[in-house]
């Protein structure tokens, strides 16, 4: 049972949050993970998410906004069901990262931090994702796809469109 009445989260997530606030020496330590898990479920950090998380950790909503604005993976607007994150940092750049980015833009018909009209994909150019030795690499939500070519990207997009893509949460 959730410790928050009228929680906006699913019973599983609410239960997870009930536990998260108890495991750390200080409750506030649960803030960053909670924001991520909330985003995974709701799609973005809405005002309602901020309100409930502030209540759960005994923080001001301002404190939550202050933290969430710092972290680049947290967003305050909805994204596509599958957020395509293309790394263009040095190791990826040297092996075609920008070519992959251009291909994604062309294929999806959207630019940086935009979402396709059907809401399936959004696109983001990101900094190093830690896949340098398998460059060029992208992440679709939390899943890594590496050693890419434009052709392999096409196959991936089709897989996700067909609901065959992996989706780790």
């Amino acid at each position, binding site marked *: 049972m959730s410790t928050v009445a009228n929680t906006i989260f699913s019973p599983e997530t609410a239960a997870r949050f009930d536990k998260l606030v108890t*495991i*750390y*020496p*200080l409750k*506030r*330590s*649960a*803030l*960053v*993970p909670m*924001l*991520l898990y909330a985003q995974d479920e709701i799609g973005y950090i809405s005002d309602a998410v901020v309100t409930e998380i502030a209540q759960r*950790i005994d923080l001001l909503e301002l404190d939550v906004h*202050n*933290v969430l604005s*710092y*972290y*680049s*993976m*947290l967003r305050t607007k909805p994204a596509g069901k599958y957020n395509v994150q293309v790394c*263009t*940092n*040095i*190791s990826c*750049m*040297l*092996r075609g990262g*920008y070519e992959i*980015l*251009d291909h994604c833009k062309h294929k999806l018909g959207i*630019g*940086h931090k935009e979402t396709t009209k059907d809401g399936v994909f959004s696109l983001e*150019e990101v*900094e*190093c*994702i*830690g*896949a*340098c*030795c*398998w*460059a060029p690499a992208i*992440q679709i939500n*939390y*899943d*890594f796809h*590496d*050693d890419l070519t434009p052709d392999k990207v096409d196959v991936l997009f089709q897989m996700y469109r067909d609901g065959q893509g992996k989706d*780790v*949460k």
Partner: protein
Amino acid sequence: MPALVSHPDEVKVVSRRFGMGATDIDKYVELDGYKAVQQAIAKGPEWIITEMKASGLRGRGGAGFPTGMKWSFVPKQSEKPKYVLVNGDESEPGTCKDHVLFLHDPHAVIEGTMIAGLAIGSKLGFIYLRGEYRYLLKIVEKAVADAYAKGFLGKNIFGTGVDFDIITQTGAGAYEVGEESALMESLEGKRGVPRIKPPFPAVVGLYGGPTVINNAETIANAPHILLMGGEAYAKLGSERNGGTRLFGISGHVERPGVYELPMGYNLKRAIYEVAGGIKDGKTLKAVVPGGSSCPVMLPEEIDIGLDFDQMGKAGTMLGSGGIVVLDETVSIVEFALRTIAFYQHESCGWCIPCREGTDWIKKTLTRVYNGGGNKKDVANVQYLAENMLGRTFCPLGDAAAMPTIAFVKKFRKEFEDYIEGNKAGTPIITVEQLVGAH
């Protein structure tokens, strides 16, 4: 799934269980897992620290601080609880070694965390991964749960009366959080801005308690060191640089990958033999030897041993072990711009020299790259970078300044020619892309 690579010159210590299914706790135990921590419990903190000091192990995150010495700095008596914090917020461009470590041998990180805890008298450890590594967090979470189920973690571990707990979590996208004091801030649920030092974390760290913060690879070495003995581990490496380390070789090489090589291994050989040489038979132009913050090296400078001291003497750094190789087609103007654009994006804004300096250098180099540079720009970029050095709370300002200074010093002519209209290399980034994201 990242491909595993192999080369006969490798000396596998921390990577010896890679590809052997050691994420499974029974397999890990079969491969000598959780033996070292039981020895550590039996022999006590003095023995652990003596072995760690003898091993010559130095921090694999990039700073190269001797690990045994770091552990010995934690006060024995403390009113506040002590903590172990494992830094798996691997974010330095060019670095993906902890990625494979968490993927293939999460129990080694867990066992190392326990050993560090025993050495300093802590009962709680944290393993913090970068937010992008969610699938790796799940692997580590499962490993921790399995260790609890076996009685290796929790109350009365291995029936010895010792208690030890581990909490795992991820960040949410911030390079700066890889810096140890910003990491503590993030773990305390705050913006990841650095703290001033002193006090050092060993005295006042997480939640105000004494804290040991080590890179994940450093921590994963601890069980191996205790099993083989500190001296034997030290002998694998070079003078004052014990053991082996994971080197991630990326960029323009034939066989990029994460290789475990002895400390002091020749950089030229690492590129030409281990990683198979320059891709497509092209010529080497430059090497960024230890992640994007390390000053660039010229081809004539790379006949050198890969350890902290030799690289330091050569005016660069061993850093995080991420070796990025650039062939003849690369425009250094563009590469320097992409590097500073990263640091400008990641500067947390806490210290003005870093916040303003990275932005100003990026703007100047963007103008140069777009063909609007003037002769003063090169000297101006160097001046800006030199005035960021050492003037910030944390090393991000230095990390942005050091490579920038090296680019404009070692390739000054290329910058000047570029401004004159003679552009070396093949540009990759378009003006539209520059304006688009950064």
